[in-house]
């Protein structure tokens, strides 16, 4: 016989078992929900952000998270913003992302127009990337219903649990799934570290409008419907792009302006933004360097046009420390992962950094005008340009040259420099061209940091943190200057 006490014990045991199991399943689903594409931490940040500390929400897909850098926006203009994006986010998801954004009641919603012209929901992984990040709400279920419309009954169960989709991902789990990702700088993605070409300019503004596909228009109309009743203003923005979808974007521009929303086509302002080769990756994506410029330009525009406050001097703005810390981290990452020489040299041109260069073998063939200009900006006078197989060693700090030595072309001599960095740390450089020692060495504080690869071996030292933050070798013998670290 089962008496009352045993019944209670059974009941308690059952409930604790259910609780423990539920917790483990939640943990499993949160771990398995990691993917490189879904910006899990971006969404987590969004939900954690306090309502009165978000003035702008930037919505889109990769076009948003690769082009808008919140840390730079805050640094330059004090604009408090939040990204809400996931890679290849289906167009179907846009109205629901808007509804999520509305939970933080920002003064302004910036919407990446390009996303409306993307695939609706054919990519199940992209659908799941969005669903897995949205917090449980009526909105999430609506989003799931809309996005999973054309899928099978079994797949529709995905809307209830991410585990249903990710159970097949278990064999791809890696370190990233268990630890914080280093490059999620408040959602800004560091994927586009190199690119060439310049985006289309004002000519795209003159394209003949053409209507996009019906499903895409449906999404747009649903989105516009959800815009009504929102306190904040809506700005549809078109980042600098290749103009391939210009005619649809013109159509959308006409449509949204008729509905009373604002539209800004950044292609018309690429000179003002300062777009140059190396800032643009392709399609609708800028490189991290271009994104910086675009962000600065756009945030200045937003502050002017919409009166978004500058939060830098505001007391009690709790996020300030975070913005600053993320900005620092972003800078360090940008430098330590830079792959384009001229952009790299630009990014280390700051009083904060010391640049030490030692050449090995040959460093002149691949150097072009831009590279020379950037080297000169750093304070180097001679540069290895034009001197085939010369040995070259140089050091500078904050634009001021410390020392520079170069030999003649094809010289059999190596050069060596030693000295003290502004904060007192001793350093020594040695460089040998092909006919000399054929070796590059950069020692800071007694430790060897040089990669010793062919071409320019660059070591960057941070004066404030008192440590070496990057050591890279750009193979300037080749014209595409591949980098090794």
């Amino acid at each position, binding site marked *: 016989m*089962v008496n009352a006490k045993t019944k209670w014990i*059974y009941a308690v045991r059952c409930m604790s*078992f259910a609780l*423990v*199991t539920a917790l*483990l*399943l939640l943990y*499993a689903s949160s771990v*398995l929900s990691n993917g490189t594409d879904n910006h899990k931490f971006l969404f987590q940040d969004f939900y954690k952000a306090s309502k009165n500390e978000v003035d702008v929400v930037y919505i889109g897909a990769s076009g948003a998270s690769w082009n808008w850098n919140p840390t730079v926006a805050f640094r330059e203009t004090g604009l408090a913003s939040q990204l809400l994006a996931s890679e290849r986010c289906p167009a179907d998801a846009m109205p629901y992302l808007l509804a999520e954004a509305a939970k933080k009641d920002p003064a302004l919603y910036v919407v990446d127009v390009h996303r409306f012209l993307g695939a609706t929901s054919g990519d*199940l992984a992209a659908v799941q990337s969005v669903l897995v990040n949205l917090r449980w709400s009526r909105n999430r279920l609506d989003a799931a219903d809309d996005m999973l419309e054309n*899928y*099978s009954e*079994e*797949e529709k*169960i*995905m809307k209830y649990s991410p*585990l*249903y*989709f990710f*159970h*097949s991902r*278990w*064999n791809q789990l890696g370190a990233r799934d268990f630890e914080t990702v280093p490059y999620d700088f408040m959602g800004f993605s560091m994927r586009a570290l190199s690119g060439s070409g310049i985006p289309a300019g004002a000519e795209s503004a003159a394209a003949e409008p053409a209507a996009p596909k019906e499903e895409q228009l449906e999404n747009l109309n649903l989105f516009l419907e959800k815009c009504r009743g929102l306190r904040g203003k809506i700005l549809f923005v078109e980042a600098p792009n290749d103009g391939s979808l210009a005619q649809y974007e013109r159509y959308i521009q006409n449509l949204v302006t008729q509905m009373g929303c604002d539209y800004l086509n950044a292609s018309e302002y690429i000179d003002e933004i300062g777009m140059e080769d190396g800032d643009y990756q392709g399609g609708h994506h800028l490189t991290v360097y271009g994104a910086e410029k675009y962000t600065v330009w756009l945030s200045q525009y937003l502050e002017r046009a919409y009166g978004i406050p500058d939060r830098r001097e505001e007391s009690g703005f709790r996020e300030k420390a975070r913005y600053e810390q993320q900005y620092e981290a972003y800078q360090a990452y940008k430098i330590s992962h830079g792959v384009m020489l001229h952009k790299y040299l630009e990014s280390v041109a700051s009083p904060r950094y010391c640049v030490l260069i030692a050449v090995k073998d040959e460093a002149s063939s691949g150097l072009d005008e831009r590279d020379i200009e950037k080297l000169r900006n750093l304070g180097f006078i001679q540069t290895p340009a034009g001197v085939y197989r010369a040995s070259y060693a140089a050091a500078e700090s904050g634009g001021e040259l410390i020392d520079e030595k170069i030999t003649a072309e094809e010289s059999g001599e190596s050069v060596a420099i030693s000295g003290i960095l502004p904060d007192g740390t001793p350093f020594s450089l040695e460089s040998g061209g092909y006919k000399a020692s054929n070796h590059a060495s950069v020692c800071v504080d007694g430790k060897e940091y040089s990669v010793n690869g062919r071409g320019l071996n660059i070591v960057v030292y941070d004066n404030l943190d008192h440590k070496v933050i990057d050591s890279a070798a750009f193979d300037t013998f080749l014209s595409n200057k591949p980098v090794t670290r």
Partner: protein
Amino acid sequence: MSVTSFAFFVFFAVSLPVYYLAPRRFQWYALLLFSLVFFLSSPEPRTIVYAAVSILATWYCARQFDGEAVKSAAPERRGVKAGGGFARALLPGAFSLALQALLLWILNAAPGDLSGMRPVVISLAAVLALYFLIPSRWHWRLAFLHSVVFLVFCLLRWAPGLKGRVFLGAGVAALFFAAARCSRGRGPRLNKKAALALGLTINLGMLAALKYNGFLVGNLNRILRLSIPAPQWAAPMGISFYTFSALAYLLGCYWGDTEAQKNPGKTALFIGFFPILTSGPILRYGETGPALFGGRRFDYKAVTFGLQRMLWGLFLKLVVSARLAVVVNTIYGDTETYPGFYIWLAAALFMFQLYTDFSGCMEIILGASECYGLRLPENFRTPFFSRSVQEFWQRWHITLGGWMRDFVLYPVLRTGLWKRMTKWIRAHWGKRAAKQIPNYLGMLCVWLLMGLWHGGAWKYIVGQGLWFWACIVLSRALEPLFKKMTALLRVNTDCFSWHLFQSLRVFALVALGNMFFRLDSICMVFRTWRAGFSYNPWIFFDDSLYLLGLDRKNFTVSMLGLAVLLLISALQEKHGSVRELISRQNLPFRWTVYIGLLLAVVVLGQYGPGYDAAAFIYERF
């Protein structure tokens, strides 16, 4: 619905509390309702009519064995005044009126769209009039006829969707209700042999027509050189299983083993109990019947043990079987690219796939039944530890083997023909032969039927029938020879290594036989055997096993799953119930095991988009 589908999970989660909240006397009604819902949820629910006919016929015929046949009708209620009889007398009429109203609703397109009240009033009045005109002792028969008409209309006006299914269900329920009332207080009307013939004909006839029509027509075409097209009749869910349960019940009643069940609803529950509709086990009335109708209180241990069992079944099916299926399909799908040792690997893996699939499903079914407090008969008892093929079939699909033994082998061996044959053989060929040959011939009948049960194709009869018959007969006939050899070679037959040898031998023979089950035809099997004679043992060492559709990690998971299965089977063989064993350990260990299993199923299970987990091998039975 498949037992590993989400729909079944919801169904089970809803039905369990409903069952336990119902008063004990009505719990079997709840089970009957669940079975009805389960049946109606199949893709072709109209086939429930076949099942209903089968069940009603079985119930009726079984009742005929109860006592002597009475030519005249049993004494029935006289008039309408006998205490409370007035309401009871009105019941058939009221029943018919309700049916007629429903019928009118179905015949008109939309509810409430009764174009004019006249046809309604006329038809209802006609029904009432009929009841007044007919003597009261035929009232319920009329009601039964009416329910048949109703059901026919439900079928004619069938439209897929919820409404059609609900009406179908209502029609079947009405039919059974009327049949029950019809037969109240009546004794047997048919003589025993006639009733038996009727019951057997209807059940076996339906089975043959619905499941074997292709086979019969195909062979007829081949023999008579005709070209009749095979009819595309859909077979009801679980027809092979419930027909055999029904036959067991019928024959049991005929032989006096079992007492006939008076209530057709209870008979329906026994024959069509929903867990068995996917893949058995074949029930015996004596064992399971009364338990079904008793009802029980909520028992914590029963429910938790049942859930643990279901979890284990899900693990076997979704984690192990589904993965092995991928490898087997790849190899058999292209035997030119995968000759030699691949073939034998596929044969072995197919055995494991079949076992984990079938026994996994069985664990889910038995676990679910245990949650309702019912212990259904086991169908598997660690079959791979058997020492001989005969023992294998006492451990694999136990209920089918038992059924064949009790209802085919025994009756056959006890017929006059067999007895005369035995005498003849004893006279001409000696006592030895007389002991063996009649048995072998009896077994031949059994095995041919076994083969046929597995499917209507010659490959089943040969591969699942004759092959195993040959193995068993040879092993029995050669037994004295083997005994001499083992004695001569001083083989120790009482040790682990000998048992292992025997198990491997059985495994090999069964795996070869099951190649007929898996491959498309007998020619295909011989071709595959021939392809298996190339020499390529390096495939086990050069990572080519990871190119068969499963990557390294998934392949490892499937092997680990088999290892876990081996461990559990060994424990079962030694200690009996593993669940008992685990429940005696401390809480952290127990919970780790259960949660680990659950996580394994949820994370590693093959289900969802891209996986055809619902395609269970035995589901088409």
